[in-house]
């Protein structure tokens, strides 16, 4: 593959990605009044992030058990009000420590 070809590919990828990310933000400039559509957009973040988290977190680690433990620990920490950063660190530490035994 020549360098020109690679740059053309990168240009196409980037144009598509940036259009997807920027167009809705710039085209939808007024408040959406429709209650159903508003409610849909309200639920979207939680549903999307939940779908992406499980079961992916279980398969991300070397052992499925350590991933599952991280999930449980993260939910417990977040439930009791731990910050974003702290929850992320707790999940990492749980995986690291549990894999010392599991792996």
């Amino acid at each position, binding site marked *: *593959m020549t360098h020109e070809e*690679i740059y053309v*590919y*990168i240009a*196409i*990828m980037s*144009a*598509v*990605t*940036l259009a*997807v*990310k*920027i*167009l*809705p*933000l710039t085209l939808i*400039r007024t*408040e959406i009044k429709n*209650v*159903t559509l*508003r*409610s*849909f*957009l309200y*639920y*979207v*973040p*939680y*549903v*999307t*992030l*939940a*779908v*992406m*988290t*499980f*079961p*992916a*977190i279980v398969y*991300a*680690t*070397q052992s499925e058990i350590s991933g599952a433990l*991280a999930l449980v620990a*993260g*939910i417990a*920490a*977040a*439930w009791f*009000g731990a910050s*974003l*950063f702290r*929850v*992320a*660190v707790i*999940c*990492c530490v749980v*995986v*690291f420590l549990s*894999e010392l035994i599991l*792996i």
Partner: protein
Amino acid sequence: MTAENRQAFREGIRDGVPIALGYFVVSFTLGILARYVGLTPFQGFLASFLNNASAGEYVGFALMALKAPYFEIAAMVFIANARYILMSAVMSQKFSPDTPFYHRIFVGFDVTDEIFGITIAREGWLNPFYNYGAMLVALPGWSVGTALGIIAGNILPAAAVSALSVALYGMFIAIIIPPARKDKVVSVAVVVSFVLSFVAGEFFSEISAGTRTIFLTLVIAGAAAVLYPVEKK
């Protein structure tokens, strides 16, 4: 910069640090793939700086390796990134009418799963300077990580990669659990999402994870919106 914007900028950097760390690990492995495809460190940096999308870039690099037609790479990158249409639409509603238009372009430039997550976790109107703070650390974490992956190949120990690979999921958990605790409908939606995501992964594994995410989001958030519409505050 006003004092309020400076404060938001600082908070953005603070919340961006764990994102950057998680990005670094993921993009490092992306760089290993890019190296195999034949990208230089600069090309990897450029692709990651402009795309900042894990699945989209994986698909793009993999198709480059196959010398796929341009249309095909455009279509596949679109599918891999289509969930950002929803996220961008959600964020459009967080903008105050007083915020200048150009901020929408710059904030849109770096819509990612994680930055979307921390943005919607904040109350009130979106302050673009919060996003800029997060971007300031997250974007280099992602693009420099890709370049270093191309240069260095696989040098991180497996135990470190494994532990750090849950950092981004930990952030997602921290974003969805507090509202789920307060709002019963959200908590049910989260549990249903977990269950259906697992079921979809088991029975429709030939469909890409990105497409499954879009489909499940449309169905579950759609059902919640119809059954439990949210009254305007």
